[in-house]
């Protein structure tokens, strides 16, 4: 039995009624008087010079009020393409008109004169010398050239001896490694611990493979939308469906040179984000530009097709991975070379390549990662950015090794998992973690230890790790005369975080959950709040809420001491009232009475505040087991069982936590089995839900969630970030289950039926 009365309980979400009745106002529900409709003019070519932009025909169309291009961006910051386009869908101009159909027609009337250029979509092609360049950038060295270069530098810096012979030899070798001269590189990261060469040499078994993970879209239900209203004084109001209103405020201000105080961002209810809804470029900046030019409110709303061609999806990745282990199941070395498909701009997730180390004691580790330019839109975060991709490679390869050495997949992982105090490869020492507990919990819940399977059936296990982020936030609390409590803040609720905040405040103030309400302010009226991404909100805003509630408590106790004529340390706040601890006769006063009393005191109303920035987070593990059945004639894979465990530190709202576990698991399943943005030399060829498949509830049985609680020292009530971890293992979970069913590994996702058939054929089955 929990010592708490509100936290740890599955109370209904504060927004449940609004959501189910349709009362919640999303971005697309915002209408302003006299509003115009904006439409972006987009590139029709994946790679081309722009030789001319002619807006004259479009301007003549009745109902068109304004057309903006880069020339309208006074700061010179890049908003629209000017002389070159790098992907289909890249914005070149934007139109505002009196109705959406006119805007759409006008956008088509803007004539762009293109000179087409060769196109590159494949990362392994893009790094080759024969490939078109997207940007005028230098080449970069591959891993072997980097090693030689470092050695050469060392030798030439060492003047104590003559190294000329070795230098000459190494220089020749360096120059001969031509295919390690990489082109179109947007970014690189390199990490090393121990000596992988030595580790592989000592290994009994070394497995090497290339894993390919496709680019996928976050496919939030609500496409990007923004309504901007610039008034004659220059004040700009933006209604935005976003994960981070304060980031939108600073982003719009910076891009367009508007003083921060002249912008108010009003966040609407948000129809999903998953990391993809932070940027200002897609709709906010064009809407503001159009509103400034017309003096009217302007809505810019993307269609689903626009989301696919010009959203910021998760990058695809090609990972060459090598792992060495002993026959008794100790991992000795791992080396990764990853190429991330950044698209047209330097992109997301490359920094996560290091997570290919997993939560294992790998003494020798080397990770080289490159971001690669291709003729696609840029990328951004998607639920645990980068980790599903590398965990797929890492956990698939561990599965291969376990099979080869004849060790149980769960035992093998348990044997290598880190515990408190263990060295994290290329990192610090591990704090108290719940890795083993989480994996054991899923194995027990799934019936792993005595699992059975029929023909063409298989079981797969995999894990993924993630550590929640942290960021600044502030909260105010006000206690009213009826004893109710109101929370004021500015963070965006995606996953049920408002509910968690309300639970925390109710717990600390000992009032019923139903008496706590929340007001979300806009950027003019709310204290700063970090964006809702990186699983930060419950950790950050939960801590903030706790501080604010504790501050409120102080004020309550001081007031009560005054009112009850005793000292504050002789008082206790319990069940919504303050009571005297030791004194006759027993006296108490309710929060409502105190709040009423506060209005006639010199101190004034009961208000508390909390402000928080950061404290170290604790890593969390997600572990999954799937049972599948494959139809060997069609290649279809059906999930028979899916069990997903996660160390959440402390589940402030178990129902909401289960929702996150289920959602993340299903998204991971989708990435493994069906989701894939497909490209050819004409750009994205499946920009819609007909051929970009997201699963429905008919595709999976109920995900069985298993909550593990190893408290985080700095989390509110021990909570860890919950939103991201559950997507991290699933790509590998599914791949490993399919191998167990058909005996063949598919190393290129998604595992579509045709690939299963091809794999079976190649293996003579």
């Amino acid at each position, binding site marked *: 039995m929990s010592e708490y009365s509100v936290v740890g309980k599955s109370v209904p979400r504060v927004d449940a009624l609004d959501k189910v009745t349709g009362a919640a106002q999303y971005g697309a529900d915002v209408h302003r008087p006299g509003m115009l409709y904006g439409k972006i003019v987009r590139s029709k070519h994946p790679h081309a010079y722009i030789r001319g932009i002619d807006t004259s025909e479009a301007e003549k169309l009745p109902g068109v009020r304004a057309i903006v291009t880069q020339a309208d961006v006074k700061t010179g910051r890049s908003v629209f393409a000017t002389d070159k386009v790098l992907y289909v869908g890249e914005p070149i101009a934007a139109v505002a008109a009196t109705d959406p*159909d006119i805007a*759409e*027609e006008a956008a088509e009337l803007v004539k762009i004169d293109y000179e087409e250029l060769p196109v590159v979509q494949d990362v392994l092609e893009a790094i080759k010398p024969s490939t078109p360049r997207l940007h005028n950038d230098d080449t970069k060295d591959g891993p072997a050239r980097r090693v030689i270069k470092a050695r050469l530098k060392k030798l030439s810096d060492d003047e104590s001896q003559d190294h000329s012979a070795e230098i000459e030899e190494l220089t020749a070798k360096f120059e001969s490694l031509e295919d390690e001269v990489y082109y179109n590189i947007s970014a690189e990261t390199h990490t090393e611990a121990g000596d992988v060469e030595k580790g592989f040499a000592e290994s009994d078994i070394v497995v090497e493979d290339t894993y390919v993970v496709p680019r996928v879209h976050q496919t939030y239900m609500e496409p990007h939308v923004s309504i901007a209203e610039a008034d004659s004084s220059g004040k700009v109001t933006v209604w935005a469906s976003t994960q981070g209103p304060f980031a939108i405020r600073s982003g719009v201000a910076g891009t367009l040179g508007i003083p921060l105080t002249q912008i108010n961002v009003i966040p609407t209810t948000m129809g999903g984000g998953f990391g993809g809804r932070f940027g200002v470029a897609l709709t906010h900046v064009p809407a503001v530009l159009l509103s400034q030019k017309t003096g009217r409110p302007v809505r810019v709303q993307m269609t689903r*097709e626009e989301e696919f061609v010009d959203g910021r999806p998760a990058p695809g990745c090609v990972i060459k991975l090598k792992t060495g282990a002993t026959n008794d199941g100790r991992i000795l070395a791992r080396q990764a070379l990853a190429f991330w498909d950044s698209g047209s701009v330097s992109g997301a997730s490359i920094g996560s390549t290091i997570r290919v180390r997993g939560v294992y004691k790998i003494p020798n580790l080397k990770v080289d990662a490159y971001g690669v330019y291709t003729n696609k839109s840029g990328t951004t975060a998607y639920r645990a950015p980068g980790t599903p991709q590398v965990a797929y490679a890492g956990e698939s390869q561990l599965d291969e090794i376990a099979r080869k050495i004849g060790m149980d997949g769960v035992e093998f992982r348990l044997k290598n998992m880190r515990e408190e105090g263990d060295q994290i490869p290329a990192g610090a020492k591990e704090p108290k973690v719940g890795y083993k507990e989480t994996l054991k919990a899923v194995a027990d819940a799934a019936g792993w230890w005595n699992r059975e399977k029929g023909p063409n059936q298989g079981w797969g296990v995999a894990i993924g790790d993630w550590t929640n982020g942290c960021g600044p936030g502030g909260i105010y609390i006000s206690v009213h005369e009826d004893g109710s409590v109101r929370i004021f803040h500015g963070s965006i609720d995606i996953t049920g975080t408002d509910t968690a905040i309300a639970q925390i405040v109710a717990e600390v103030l000992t009032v019923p959950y139903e008496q706590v309400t929340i007001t979300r302010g806009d950027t003019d009226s709310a204290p700063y709040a970090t964006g809702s991404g990186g699983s930060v909100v419950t950790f950050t805003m939960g801590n903030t809420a706790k501080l604010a509630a504790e501050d409120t408590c102080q004020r309550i106790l001081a007031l009560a001491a005054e009112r009850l004529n005793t000292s504050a340390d002789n008082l206790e706040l319990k069940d919504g009232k303050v009571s005297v601890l030791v004194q006759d006769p027993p006296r108490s006063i309710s929060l409502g009475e105190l709040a009423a009393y506060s209005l006639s005191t010199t101190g004034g109303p009961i208000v508390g505040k909390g402000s928080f920035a950061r404290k170290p987070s604790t890593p969390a593990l997600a572990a999954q087991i799937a049972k599948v059945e494959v139809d060997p*004639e*069609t290649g*279809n894979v059906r999930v028979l069982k899916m069990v997903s465990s996660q160390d959440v530190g402390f589940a402030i709202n178990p129902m909401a936590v289960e929702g996150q576990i289920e959602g993340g698991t299903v998204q991971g399943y989708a990435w493994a*089995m*069906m989701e894939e943005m*497909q490209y050819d030399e004409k750009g994205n*060829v*499946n920009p819609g*839900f*007909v*051929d970009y*498949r997201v*699963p*429905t509830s*008919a*595709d999976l049985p109920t995900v069985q969630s298993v909550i593990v609680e190893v408290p985080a020292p700095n989390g509110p009530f021990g909570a860890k970030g919950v939103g991201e971890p559950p997507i991290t293992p699933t790509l590998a979970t599914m791949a490993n289950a399919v191998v167990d069913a058909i005996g063949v590994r598919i190393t290129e996702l998604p595992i*579509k*039926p*045709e690939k299963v*058939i091809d794999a079976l054929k190649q293996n003579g089955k």
Partner: protein
Amino acid sequence: MRNFEFFEPTTVEEASSLLAQYNGKARLLAGGTDLIIGMKARTEMPEYVISLENIPGLDGITYDEGSGLRVGAMTKMRALETDAIIRDRYTALAEGAAEVGSIQIRHLATLGGNIGHASPAADAAAALLVLDAQVQIGSADGQRTVPIDALFTGPGTTVLEPGEIITAFEFPPRPANSGSQYLKQKIREVMDLAFVGVASAVTLNDGAVENTRIGLAAVAPTPIRATEAEGIINRYHPVTKEILEQAAEAASAQSRPISDLRCSAEYRRQIVGVLTRRTVQTAINRAQS
């Protein structure tokens, strides 16, 4: 969406006259689940849209032991999949209808629209082929009947003349000792378009399989019959595993699939074989029970 003029005629003749008058610039609107999507995507930009909604008599299912089944063009997929007679005697049609989109879509989508749209992947088309549907076509000039085999001319095109409208589908009676099935290869369990669709129908005569029909969707420019395979099943008695395999191979060989972003032609051909074998077997089993 482009602006358009909207008509709601109350007779087939009136609708037909409008359609003929604005030939090439007008489209019929049934449930709109193909047309409106196309108009939003600007792949369809009609200047005139003629709704069939207010024409009495186009919607409905009637069955008569003597004359068989009549399904009005405006009949919804949801009505087809839930109708007891269709489920029992014209099972492949109920199953084809049930494969269309989601329940919400099937409350809008009509059989006339599915066939009028003439997609090679239309889920009801293979069932109509194997259940010997006769397409009733009306116009201001009168009525004519075209067998379903002769309706489609290519992706999105039919033999309909300017001003012609599908009014109903008629199916011969099916004896109790007949059976049929439609199977669809897809990735997503629901709301997926057919990678391959196969319908089979058989009648048993003294244990011998007769009147075999095999219809294939999404593996040729139009929905087609796998006539070679049908002949193999009809020719041999009993229908053994080997015969089924031969028929499957014949159906594969007769299909003319393309490779596209969904899958390769080779894969489609293989699936034609698998689903032919499975649907013929099920159709026989159903005829026996």
